[in-house]
């Protein structure tokens, strides 16, 4: 009798665990849907919603330069989804994209670098990272996965911000885009959920001598201007990396861009492979779940 109870309890526990495992993204989904709703509402009619969402913008600016009625899929373009003048410039540059050579260089690295093909047999994986590695108990970004792969085959890790790393990631992004892949970040366990929550906290916490959070500029501040530049929304922020930035005159990874944001906030930038950075990117990428992979791309 007692053996039957033990068996039944064990089975019930397994069933509950399996069901619970499927529910680790409940809060993240709630956050993501609320973010989508917020962004769609904000950009539904910027002129009409000026008082609530664009208090510092002029009527003329909202009428002439900010596109309204934005839907979820359009946010994949970042600020070019709503910035009409910026979009026109972006479209012009995109006619002769400056990152094309980098994709070719990335393909050569993929085929010619020891171990890479074995670690990433399918190169169309840009939308799956960052992911939570249950064995390591930590978030793995595409950048850290590539460097781990290099180290495992006895090679030196690459610079996580530019150069070969950005080129190989450009190839991965290009192949993912070509295959029609979407951002698909998963939260498979309690530990992954905790990493997501820490990343979320990092994103929304005010830091640095300017006391700015990422959200100040990219959630509440999205669509507002800093000098002549419009700030991009969190929704769709990670989909197009690596990017060729005119300011950099070259290609850079998401980690490189985040380091720049940290500096702008007035704090010592976090290292690309640090848990802080990896968890931040985990949260950010989850927010873009369902959007198509759109990299590599161009940004100012």
């Amino acid at each position, binding site marked *: 009798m007692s053996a039957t109870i033990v068996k039944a309890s064990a089975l019930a526990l397994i*069933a*509950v665990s399996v*069901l*619970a495992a499927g*529910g*680790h993204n*409940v*809060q993240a989904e*709630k*956050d993501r*849907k*609320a*973010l989508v*709703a*917020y962004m769609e*509402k*904000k950009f539904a009619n910027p002129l009409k919603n000026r008082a*609530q969402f664009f208090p510092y913008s002029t009527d003329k600016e909202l009428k002439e330069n900010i596109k309204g009625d934005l839907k979820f899929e359009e946010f994949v373009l970042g600020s070019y989804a709503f910035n009409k003048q910026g979009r026109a410039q972006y479209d012009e540059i995109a006619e002769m994209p400056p990152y094309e050579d980098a994709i070719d260089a990335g393909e050569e690295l993929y085929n010619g670098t020891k171990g890479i093909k074995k670690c990433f047999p399918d190169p169309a994986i840009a939308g799956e990272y960052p992911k939570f590695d249950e064995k390591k108990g930590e978030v793995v970004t595409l950048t850290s996965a590539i460097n781990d792969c290099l180290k495992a085959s006895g090679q030196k890790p690459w610079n996580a911000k530019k150069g070969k790393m950005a080129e190989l990631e450009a190839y991965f992004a290009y192949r993912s885009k070509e295959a029609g892949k979407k951002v698909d970040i998963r939260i498979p366990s*309690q530990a992954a*959920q*905790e990493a997501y*929550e820490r990343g*979320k*906290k990092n994103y*929304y*916490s*005010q*830091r*640095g*001598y300017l*006391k700015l*959070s990422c*959200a*100040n500029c990219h*959630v*509440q501040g999205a669509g507002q201007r800093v000098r002549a530049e419009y700030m991009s929304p969190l929704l769709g922020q990670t989909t197009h990396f690596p990017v060729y930035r005119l300011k950099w005159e070259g290609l850079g990874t998401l980690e490189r861009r985040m380091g720049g944001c940290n*500096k702008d906030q*007035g*704090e*010592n*930038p*976090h290292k690309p492979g*640090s848990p*802080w950075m990896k968890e931040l990117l985990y949260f950010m990428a989850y927010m873009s779940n369902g959007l198509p992979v759109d990299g590599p791309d161009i940004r100012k």
Partner: protein
Amino acid sequence: MKTVQTIVTLLNLGAALTLSASAEEVNAAVEAAAKLDVKKVCDVRANGLEKVLAVAEKYNPEAVKLGVEFKRLGITNSTYIKGLKEAVKAKKPEVTLKYKSKGKEKSKTFKTDYAAWRSCHFAVRALQQVKEAQSTYRLAIPGDGYSF
């Protein structure tokens, strides 16, 4: 099925409670810094250079450990403190800080009093912000503390 759903909900609730509990756990240095009046403890005229420098030296390493150290125009607070220690020891009225920016060696000169105030202010505020963020970060999350 309803029972299973209830158990799953309870498990999720437990997880949420665990998360909020861990969010409340803050470093002892953060708690200590949160109680300080930064204008008073970093007042060079009232406390003297050595005392103000000691406050910066006490709190900035904790900010570094937590990954919240301030950096302004290419100069980290650790650089301020390092340069300041030498200037205070040599009783110099000015402190010259050497730092790297975009791969180039650079330097900037500040009044020693000013550098002391800044390093102390930066060290304490970095930790105070950690404490403040515990209760404020959710206010910015759409669908949570931020309604629209």
